[in-house]
């Protein structure tokens, strides 16, 4: 297989551990005076967008930041719970840059680009240093040093955390760095603005069209470069752990204007979420992977067992992850854990009213911690109750907010009864295709964070999205953007009455008018729910060719109905959340089709992409490296037609092997 001539990944030559340092010392620079006249637009204020904005503004570029929430601090990154990885080896447990690199490539089932992943591992330590310098209050030990916990898919403890609110603390750190630049006038902030198109001039990206969500007015903004940091598209499934507003629109508009879309079918289904409780459900809530440190997952050995969990004796419980994967046990990667849960439930061993749930049980570890505490406090012969009480306090300190959240949602107390959990859509590894510089196939148009496809292959390891978002924004783009902008110092700011801006704005306006004038009979949510059901049933945890073909037809039909029968209330020139949703769902209705096409094209199973036709006798994913060790990058040909381009993945440093966690 050869890489398409349209996809030059631009990975520097040289030894893997020299590539980035050499690149950094040879990349073109922009002098301070020129930086002041170079303008950069950043769509998104999550970890990727906020860190990029703060860093580029500190360097002297003129920056504009857009987000659709009322404040940049509310970007979806705020909700990340469990932690962020870094190869610091503070625990002296054998961690290294190489090991993080290796774990990430293997965790991604050998479907990521070596050069990018190694760089990610290299800068991971700097991220922690930077965040601590900003005052991010990570968890600490009594000696004052930083604390770590374990996450899935690794055998070292390299995850840094702030209780169950790591994303919040990291984002508030990046947000405060961003606000500092806003205060100094180096960044101009456009909150409650939604980017609705990119503007290309002479083959380069030169700006965006945005809608002021309060007045409904369309605005034109010029930039020498545009960075898309708009997050993931898990909400194509309607129900996911993403925030309600998370959407694909910014990335999709970029795609339609020439940016190839990489591996759209790679979706992460997270094993530990609170199960669906009814049709009214608007979103699903994650119970952080960090809980798998201390919780054991089980189902009854007897199918259809209706006894209370406390009444099921130890020997009648099936700790199926520990049974199937003794080496990693409860800490297998997410794709493996999710499929194993589905397998047990499909076979009739599920628990709870819906039978679509398994137990996540903390009682054993609560007792273990209690015993350790009793020893520490010199309590001799403690009662069982005392041990439990001491252990509960330890668990509370580690996961208190998650336990509270669980109780609030389900009405059950997880300190007393095991949690019931089930897999849910969580993260999208696919996204805009980018090269080593994080540039898409459109010159001057970049993609950062979850919006790009780059580092996680077919499955992301826990605590690696926060790492990647901040790596992209703090440590990668500040260098790589110089490679492009150093050639742009002679480009004067282009006036936004340029015909390309006028045309792009007119197109956006027309689409809005169209949505407003259909005046059909069904709400936007109605269509979104239908789409979500098709995607979950046929392009979810398990996929097969027949189902995917059917899904494509169903989505086409649904899209037609949408454009005939959707009802968008209110006016275009006012604050109108229904109109915002309508535009996003319209884009999901196109993306969904591409995801199914991509899943159908990939005749193998890898990571989160499980094709039922391709599995081992034990039900593990079966890759086909000879034919599918490539990134699928889709070019939009208009009218919902796409052309596939392949970037061959070459493994020079890691031996490609069957992934085993046994």
């Amino acid at each position, binding site marked *: 297989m050869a890489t398409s001539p349209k996809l030059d990944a631009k990975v520097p030559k040289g030894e893997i551990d020299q590539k980035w340092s050499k690149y950094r010392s040879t990349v073109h620079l922009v002098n301070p005076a020129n930086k002041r006249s170079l303008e950069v637009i950043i769509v998104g204020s999550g970890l990727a967008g906020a860190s990029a904005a*703060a*860093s580029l503004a500190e360097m002297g570029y003129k920056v504009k930041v857009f987000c659709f*929430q*009322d*404040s*940049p*601090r*509310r970007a979806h990154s*705020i909700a990340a719970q469990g932690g962020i990885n870094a190869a*610091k080896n*503070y625990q002296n447990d054998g961690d290294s840059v190489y090991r993080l690199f290796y774990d990430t490539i293997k965790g991604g089932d050998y479907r990521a680009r070596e050069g990018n992943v190694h760089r990610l591992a290299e800068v991971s*330590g*700097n991220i922690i*240093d*930077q*965040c*601590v*310098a*900003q*005052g991010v*209050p*990570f*968890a*600490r*030990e*009594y000696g*004052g*040093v*930083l604390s770590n916990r374990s996450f899935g898919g690794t055998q070292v403890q390299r995850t840094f955390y*702030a*209780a169950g*609110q790591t994303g*919040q*603390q990291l984002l508030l750190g990046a947000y*405060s*760095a961003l*606000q500092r630049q*806003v205060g100094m006038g180096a960044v101009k902030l456009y*909150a*409650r603005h939604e980017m609705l198109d990119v503007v290309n001039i002479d083959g380069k990206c030169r700006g965006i069209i945005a809608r002021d969500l309060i007045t409904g007015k369309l605005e034109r903004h010029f930039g020498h470069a545009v960075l898309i940091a708009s997050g993931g598209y898990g909400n194509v499934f309607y129900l996911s752990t993403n*925030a*309600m507003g998370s959407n694909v629109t910014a990335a999709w508009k970029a795609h339609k204007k020439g940016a190839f879309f990489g591996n759209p079918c790679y979706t992460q289904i997270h094993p530990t979420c609170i199960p669906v409780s*009814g*049709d*009214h459900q*608007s*979103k699903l809530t994650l119970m952080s992977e960090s809980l798998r440190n201390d919780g054991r997952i089980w189902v009854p050995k007897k199918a259809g067992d209706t006894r209370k969990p406390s009444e099921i004796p130890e020997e009648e419980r099936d700790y199926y992850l520990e049974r199937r994967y003794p080496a990693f046990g409860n800490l297998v990667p997410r794709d493996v854990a999710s499929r194993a849960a589905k397998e047990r439930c499909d076979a009739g061993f599920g628990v709870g009213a819906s039978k679509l749930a398994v137990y996540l049980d903390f009682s054993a570890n609560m007792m273990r911690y209690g015993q350790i505490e009793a020893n520490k406090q010199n309590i001799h012969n403690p009662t069982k109750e005392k041990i439990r009480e001491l252990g509960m306090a330890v668990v509370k300190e580690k996961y208190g907010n998650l336990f509270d*959240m669980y109780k*609030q*949602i389900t*009405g059950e107390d997880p300190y007393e009864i095991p949690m019931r959990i089930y897999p849910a859509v969580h993260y999208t590894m696919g996204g805009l295709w980018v090269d080593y510089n994080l540039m898409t196939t459109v010159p001057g148009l970049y993609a950062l964070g979850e919006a790009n496809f780059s580092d996680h292959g077919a499955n992301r390891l826990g605590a690696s999205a926060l790492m990647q978002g901040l790596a992209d924004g703090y440590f990668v783009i*500040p260098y790589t953007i110089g490679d492009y902008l150093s050639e742009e110092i002679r480009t004067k700011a282009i006036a936004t009455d340029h015909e390309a801006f006028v045309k792009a704005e007119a197109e956006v306006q027309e689409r809005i008018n169209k949505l407003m004038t259909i005046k059909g009979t069904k*709400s936007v949510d109605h269509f979104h729910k239908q789409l979500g059901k098709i995607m979950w049933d046929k392009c979810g945890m398990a996929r097969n060719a027949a189902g995917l073909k059917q899904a494509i037809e169903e989505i086409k039909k649904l899209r037609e109905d949408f454009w005939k029968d959707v009802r968008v*209330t*209110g006016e275009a020139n*006012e*604050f*109108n*959340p*229904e109109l915002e949703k309508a535009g996003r769902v319209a884009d999901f209705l196109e993306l969904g089709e591409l995801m199914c096409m991509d899943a159908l094209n990939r005749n193998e199973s890898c990571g989160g992409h499980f094709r039922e036709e391709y599995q081992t006798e034990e039900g593990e994913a079966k890759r086909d490296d000879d034919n599918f060790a490539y990134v699928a990058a889709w070019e939009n040909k208009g009218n919902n037609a796409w052309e596939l381009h392949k970037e061959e993945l070459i493994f020079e440093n890691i031996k490609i092997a069957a992934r085993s966690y046994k």
Partner: protein
Amino acid sequence: MSHGNMNLTLKVWKQKNKDAKGALETYQVKGISPDMSFLEMFDVLNEQLITEGKDPIAFDHDCREGICGMCSMFINGRPHGPVKGVTTCQLHMRSFKDGDTIVVEPWRSTAFPIVKDLAVDRSAFDRVIAAGGFVSVNTGNAKDANNILINKDDADDAFNAAACIGCGACVATCKNGSAMLFVSAKVSQLALLPQGQIEKEARVLSMVGQMDDEGFGACSVTGACEIECPKGISLENIARMNREFLGANIKSKH
């Protein structure tokens, strides 16, 4: 639908935009399940209004798990409703009874103008942070993280202050419309950490200055904010900020 059997009367504030005159409107919702969240109950109501061809109610929300700080409903006279320690999105209908009448209004404060219906403009908070809620350290060569050792209790206290979600319930509940709890949470977080020491005087003066400019009221220590804060931000932060402010003020006059 997993229909429940609660029927409710809602009186909800409707206001077309910042300058329009608003009023409470009355709606009936039926078939609400106790497992729904308060916002899911609003989803049901809005779906019903759309079907009837009426204007749905605009409200802010995003994460729906109590962390983004976007949701902001004043329910029966209390920000985020009757349950302590939760945001509007985490409030469940099991906290209400069949037949209840529930009054829902937006945050009300001079510093938070209404955008539409229940959505308000809280950008004043962003400007207060921009005035000094940071450590001035550029991206780049920060020293190894474990070179800064921090006493665990201080780290925990700083974390507890940093847990503020910027929702504005403290302002909405305060009869003076004061933002002291919000501002003091950020000042405290950074004052408790070694990284925040160098700028601590400039920070508190600048943030308090901005807070006053934004039109937030003065604090008369009624303590309502602490009671209504969904994240348990404590009044001790206000005491700490007052000490910091006094200290900084004395110094700056020298």
